[in-house]
């Protein structure tokens, strides 16, 4: 018996009950579409996290005030002012594996130049901050040692701030005012574009740490001058300390050492909770990546279950079909159709349903993934691997769930079948 004849016979049989065939295929259509969409989203999330991971690097620790269990990173910052400049100095001095230690305070306010103004977030930074965070100067000389030690009235502007205040003009040497304090622009940062979380990384200004604390946040600053919560910081406090190590393999050790040292400096009794949090951001992202992977697996499993249900639908209908067509099967056997040809005919019907359903499902799945990518924030990665996998799933579903009914048909006794 020829392959084309088997195919033609199967198509003929399916057309005879086309409504049922379409409804049966619907299970596979939905299943395959779900697999494609779910896997695309899973892959997209993964890719996004991998990108963040690359940017962060695997050699830095972030220390925030406040206990690790009290909540997320940003919430803790500044709310429990426990980190000091002294902590920063001690970390740099007492742990030899440390490469850089940088501290910063954060606040925000209006930056004014002539009649223009721009509201931005500014940070007071320690000398190593720019190196630690990979900021380069596009123009100007930046802060000098003297600026840090004497709380110099100097500022480095992010590209967005510079553009908003100066347009095409030259910013270096100009005087801008932040919270009434006149500051000389000594540098403009090179643009970094978007942050990992979608914000504008260039909408920022840097001040020397002491400048920020004494002139902007300290007792001298009048209440309501735009300082925000950080203006309540005591003079030696910082919002964040960043530690980097030269060799990534030292990171875990340095994390332990930093924790031990800070507990000692903060006089925390054994067993008591830390009043600070040391976070290995790369580790956090790695954890998130794992979560995302699990999530992708779960999504895939849900999609797989719907495909399974579709497959069971095929099996169900094929079994009904075998029972309904028992006389036909008997006749085919009597006129010379062997068990194998009967099996192949029914298997072909199941495969046409599953492959046809799979093809439609792929079209819907790809369309759906593209629509999701366009209409929502969800990251979507669609590639030929997903489609190849979906195709394989469709074929496997037809083979797996079509085999039993087809075998049942092939094993029929022609005498019994003809008697029905």
């Amino acid at each position: 018996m020829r392959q084309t004849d088997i195919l033609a016979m199967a198509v003929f049989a399916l057309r005879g009950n086309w409504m049922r065939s379409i409804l049966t295929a619907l299970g596979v259509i939905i299943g395959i579409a779900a697999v494609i969409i779910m896997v695309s989203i899973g892959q997209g999330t993964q890719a996004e996290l991998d990108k963040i991971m690359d940017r962060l690097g695997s050699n830095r620790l972030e220390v925030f005030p406040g206990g690790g269990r009290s909540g997320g990173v940003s919430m803790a910052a500044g709310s429990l002012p426990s980190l000091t400049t002294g902590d920063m100095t001690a970390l740099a001095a007492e742990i030899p594996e440390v490469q850089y230690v940088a501290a910063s305070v954060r606040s925000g306010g209006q930056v004014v130049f002539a009649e223009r103004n721009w509201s931005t977030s500014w940070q007071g930074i320690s000398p190593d901050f720019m190196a630690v965070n990979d900021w380069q100067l596009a123009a100007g000389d930046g802060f000098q040692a003297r600026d840090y030690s004497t709380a110099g009235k100097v500022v480095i502007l992010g590209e967005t701030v510079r553009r908003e205040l100066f347009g095409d003009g030259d910013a270096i040497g100009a005087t801008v005012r932040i919270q009434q304090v006149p500051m000389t622009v000594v540098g403009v940062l090179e643009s970094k574009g978007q942050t990992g979380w979608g914000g504008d990384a260039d909408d920022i200004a840097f001040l020397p740490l002491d400048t920020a604390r004494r002139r902007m946040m300290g007792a001298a600053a009048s209440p309501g001058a735009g300082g925000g919560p950080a203006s309540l910081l005591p003079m030696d406090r910082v919002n964040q300390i960043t530690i980097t190590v030269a060799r990534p393999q030292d990171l875990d050790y340095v994390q332990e050492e930093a924790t031990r040292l800070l507990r000692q400096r903060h006089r925390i009794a054994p067993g008591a909770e830390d009043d600070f949090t040391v976070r290995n951001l790369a580790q956090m992202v790695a954890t998130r990546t794992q979560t995302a992977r699990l999530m992708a697996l779960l999504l895939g499993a849900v999609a797989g279950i719907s495909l399974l249900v579709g497959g069971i639908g095929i099996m169900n209908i094929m079994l009904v079909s075998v029972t309904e067509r028992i006389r036909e099967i008997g006749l085919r056997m009597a006129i010379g159709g062997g068990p194998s040809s009967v099996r192949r005919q029914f298997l072909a019907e199941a495969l046409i349903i599953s492959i046809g359903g799979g093809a439609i499902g792929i079209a819907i799945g790809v369309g759906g993934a593209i629509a999701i990518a366009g209409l929502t924030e969800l990251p979507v990665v669609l590639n030929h691997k997903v489609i190849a996998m979906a195709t394989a799933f469709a074929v496997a579903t037809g083979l797996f769930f079509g085999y039993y009914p087809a075998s049942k048909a092939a094993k029929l006794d022609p005498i019994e079948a003809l008697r029905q």
Partner: protein
Amino acid sequence: MMAAGSGDHRRQPPLVPAANPAANPAGQPDPVPVVRIEHLDKIYNPGTPGQVQALRDINLVIQGGEFLAIMGPSGSGKSTLMNIIGCLDAPTAGRYLCDGIDVASLDAEERARLRLARIGFVFQSFHLLPRMSALENVTLPLIYAGVPRAERAAIAEQALAQVGLADRGRHRPNELSGGQQQRVAIARALINSPPILLADEPTGALDSRTGEDILALFKRLRDAGHTVILITHDAEVAAHADRVVHIRDGALHEGDDDGQPPPEA
């Protein structure tokens, strides 16, 4: 493409050449009979309390070109004998050579190929596939024989013409009369030119006049060299055959039956 793909390359059974009356004139015994049955028993559910001996010690030789009737009341075992002659069932004991081939050693697949090439079935209820045209129904065995699509229609049309339905090829079975449907079924049975035409109560579902037509067709087919084996309970139908064997309680009696139960019963 399919799991059962191993069968794809299996050799198709060769088409048996059409029965040739010149090579096998009526009355002259053929060295290889189309049916040779020796001491054949058929027991259902052997070794259980429900054991039934359907056939006992059957001996039957049918030569090519014969028109033979196997006659018996219902329950006599004639259906069982037909299934065995038609290679749908295997004997419990004894031997059956179908066109010289011992059927006992064959598996389901090989029996199917034997039926394809050597047996043409005609059923009481026609067994036509309702969604296919007469021509498509007749074509069906050619598909299993692996005949290319392009050649099939011509062969099928020829077979339909042979049963007098050349102009009915496009009709569905439900558009045909009972007699016409049975002719389509006969054309289907003839299409692979099998040496044996096996008709199970072919007139049972037809009125007597149409039945006569069908029986006349069988005679013509016999004249054209086909071997026709007719299974019936009806003496009038059986009378059309050249030779009648009677079956009663699973045992075969050659020649005229006087209606007496067999001696051993």
